[in-house]
Every structure is written in structure tokens, then in C-alpha cells.
């Protein structure tokens, strides 16, 4: 997957978790926590969705990589390059 494709997939996951938000305005360099009021339980959902959709096992130690869109893409891009 390309970086833009991954971004679209992440937006899909986010809009599934929090459907009432406006993702057109999402800033890639600001944390999900700050922009979308996401907490650790929401982060768990992102991890579970990635596992479900891309068969990707993300170790707990790597969760901090999922803090913002930019950091998430940086982290996922090499992992999803072949998918």
C-alpha cells in the first residue's frame, strides 16, 4: 500500500470509531488524543482494527507510534509496503 492509501484506510478506521467527527479537517501532525479526544481504549480499537484488516500484529511497545496520523503513517508504511 502507498502512503495515501494507508492514510485513507486509517481515516476509515477512525470514522468507524468516532463517526460524528469531521475528518476533512484532520491535521496529520497533531495527536489523535488532542484532536479527537481519543483515549487509550480508542487506541486499542485502532490496533485491533489494524490486526483485523491487515493481519498486522502490533506489539504493545509500539503503540506510542500511533499517536498522530504522521507518526502512524511513518510506522505503518514499511510494514504495509507489500500488502
Amino acid at each position, binding site marked *: 500500500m502507498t502512503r495515501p492509501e494507508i492514510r485513507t484506510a486509517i481515516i476509515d478506521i477512525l470514522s468507524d470509531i468516532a463517526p460524528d467527527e469531521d475528518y476533512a479537517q484532520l491535521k496529520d501532525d497533531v495527536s489523535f488524543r488532542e484532536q479527537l479526544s481519543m483515549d487509550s481504549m480508542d487506541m486499542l*480499537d485502532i490496533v485491533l482494527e489494524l490486526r483485523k484488516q491487515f493481519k498486522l500484529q502490533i506489539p504493545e511497545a509500539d503503540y506510542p507510534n500511533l499517536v498522530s496520523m504522521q507518526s502512524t503513517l511513518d510506522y505503518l508504511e514499511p510494514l504495509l509496503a507489500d500488502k
Partner: protein
Amino acid sequence: MGEENIYDTVIIGAGMSGLAAGIRLAQYDKHVCILEKHTVPGGLNSFYRQKGRNFDVGLHAMTNYAPKGVRKGPLSRLLRHLRLSWDELGLIPQLGSAIAFPGVTLDFSNQFGLLESQIAEKFPSQIDRFRKMTASLVDYDQLGLGESGGSAKEFVRSFLTDPLLINMLFCPIFFYGGARESDMEFGQFCIMFRSIFLEGFARPYEGVRHILTKLLKKFKTLGGELRLHSSVKQIVSQSGQVSKLILEDGTEIRAKQFLSSAGWRETMRLCGLKEPEKEVAPGKLSFVETISVLDRDPKRLGHNKTILFFNDSESISYRKPDSLVDVRSGVICSPNNFDYAKPLGEGQIRITALANFDRWAELGEERYRLEKLRCYDALIGSAVRFIPDFRGNIIENDMFTPLTVTRYTGKDSGAIYGAADKKYDGLTPLNNLYVCGTDQGMVGIVGAIVSGITIANRYLLAK
């Protein structure tokens, strides 16, 4: 035994917590089955139909109301985790509620400022203290597991000095979630205070069945299986692990993991674990509720409160009464008094009061019926000291007692808020069996749903 009786997770009880846990698991492709002993889902928050009318059980109002767009708080959390949009719940806010004690009434609504101004007016020496107290409990973590300990009474008394105000504030909190006599665990108090006073009440137009229908549809769409009229007879375990469930009809069901919302004692009994069962004393607090259908909307009789908590003396006795019913104090709820776009039609007034399970249980069948009638009259007679007398407008009535609660929900002693001591971590002596729901520590519809989500996330999904 066929393949059809093997699951990833089996959940006992299709109440709010079991359904919420089921949705979470089904969302992540777990093969999940919910077993419900009753013929309708809902557990403590259910519904029935009688003589052509729909009645709710349990739900007076959903607490924890938040308007659309609010991202914080338990309601927005549960919407996110269950992938529901705010609109789907169809919540209509309350018109306004009150706490009525002799000579003083405190109005409150979903705007916290109303309660503050009422306290400022009626208890001027207390308002600054009240604000400080509110500020200190507002950040208590609602979703964390684990007991914070301590007495809510002591906490409140460290701020407020007027015993009447203290008793008035405790009145709704006790009635809407008190599993313990005369006091409450501090963390539970914070959750209740917030859910009632800071957030507030709402109700879907169609009542609790609307919420249950949404949850059920979600669960089934995700591939979850619900079996009604499936009562668990035994939880069979081997070397510290549950191996299968046996139903009353003899069916055997296997799964990797099990989650029970039946209650702690009730679950341990199914396991045949006598010592763990005894760790937790049965809940003492049960209730009766009268339901009166009126020939008109209660507002036309001059009653426009959504929920009115009444108490006929300055001190409040939130204890198991010695008599069948304690009519001195109670909760008057009118499902008509929410801010609907169109009125509900027939009027309804429900009145809830503390009751003694053992007294009801020792009555013979005929006495039981007579006492129900007598207590219905006594409770309504007590309530009309606080609201307009509606007795001439009743066209239909019903009543439930602590025995009704036990019959339909399987909860020991009709204790709707469960045992006084909670199992906050949801763990049991068996390593693939967990508990959620009332005895895990959260009460109310939102609390129960959050309980199911939390336990599912923590133990059943993370693995």
C-alpha cells in the same frame, strides 16, 4: 454434540453488559454466543407488554446524558466502542427533576447551573463548599478498573456541613445506584454524582426497547448469536478452567472463554464454588415499583417533573426496611416528562421504593397478591404528598416486587444493584471465566454497557 455448540466466547445474560461485551467481541470476529434465560433480552432493564400496552422495567431514564458532539464522558465512550452514532440512541433530554424533602425542594436538570443556583438560594452557606466538592470529584476516572476505596459520606462531609443538604444530595444517588446501606464507596459516588447531576437524564421515545433493539441488531449484524430461553444449569470446570456449560435442557456448550453477567454469587454457585460464593454477602437492597397508567398526560394534572426523589423527613434511611415496603422515601418517574417532539400519549407514573425481599418471599400466594394491592395504595398515598393527586385518573396499574426481580433476572434477593462488595477487576478463581455487569461495579444502563466493554477489552480482546 455438534460443531454448532463451540464458540470463542460464551456470555451468560443478554442484559446491557452482556450485549455490549458481545458486540465488542463480534466486532473483532470472535465467534460469540449470548445465553439468556428469559424469553426477552434486557435483564434488569427490560420491557413487557400487558393488555396492549408497553411497559419498561428498570429504566426510568438513562443517566450520563451528553448532547450531540460532546466527546468526553461515558456516553461518548460507549458510542465509540459500540460504533453507534449519537442519533441512533434517540435520546431525548429530561424536562427537569427535583429532590423534595419537607419544606425544601432542589430542582435540577441537565444544566448543572440550575442545581448550583438552587443550592445558592436555599443553602447559601453551602454553595462555595458545594462548588469545591464538585471540582474535586469531577476528574475521577470513570473507566478505570479498581476500587478507589473510602466512604462517600466522609468525603461529602469534609466539604458540606449542612446535614439536610447532604441527605438531599445522597437521595438520588442512593436510589439510582446504591448497593450498600447508608453509604457508598467513594469511586461509585463520583460516577453517580456525575451521571445524575453533571450529565443528567434522557430517554428514547420508545423507552428501553429502543436501546435494546439497537444493541441486538448490532450484535446480530456482526454475526453474534443470541439464544433466548437458555438457562445455564451448571458451569463445569477442570483444573482451574471452565470446560463447558450445561443448560437446563441438557445442551452442552463449549468455548475458550466465558463471561458471566449473572452476578458474582450466582455465577460462583453455577460453578459449584462455595467458598468464593461466600466471599460476597448477598445484596440487601431491593425495591418495589408501582406503575400507574393515567387517562391523561401528568403535565395536565400539574406534574411536570421528569424524576422526583422524595423523602418525608430531614434524615434519609437508605436501608433494607423491616416492613414489606418503606414508603417514607422513593422515586416518582414519569416517562411523559421528557422533551419529546410529540407527546407520548397515555400518561404513566412509576413510583419506586425500598422493599424487603425476605418479607415478600415468606408471604403465601394469596397474601402476596393482597399485600401487592395494599402496598400499591400505600406507596401512591405517600407519593401524592409531593406531587398532584393522580389517583382519580388511574386507568390501569401494575406493580413489581423484589420477587419479580429475582424471577425474571435471577438476581439473588431481588438486589437490582447487586452485592455491596464489587469485583472491580472482573476476575474469578477460574482462569477463563470473567464477570461483568452489576457485580463488577458499575450500575445504570451506561454503567452496565461500559462494564461489558471494559471487561471485553481488557481480557477477551487483548488476547
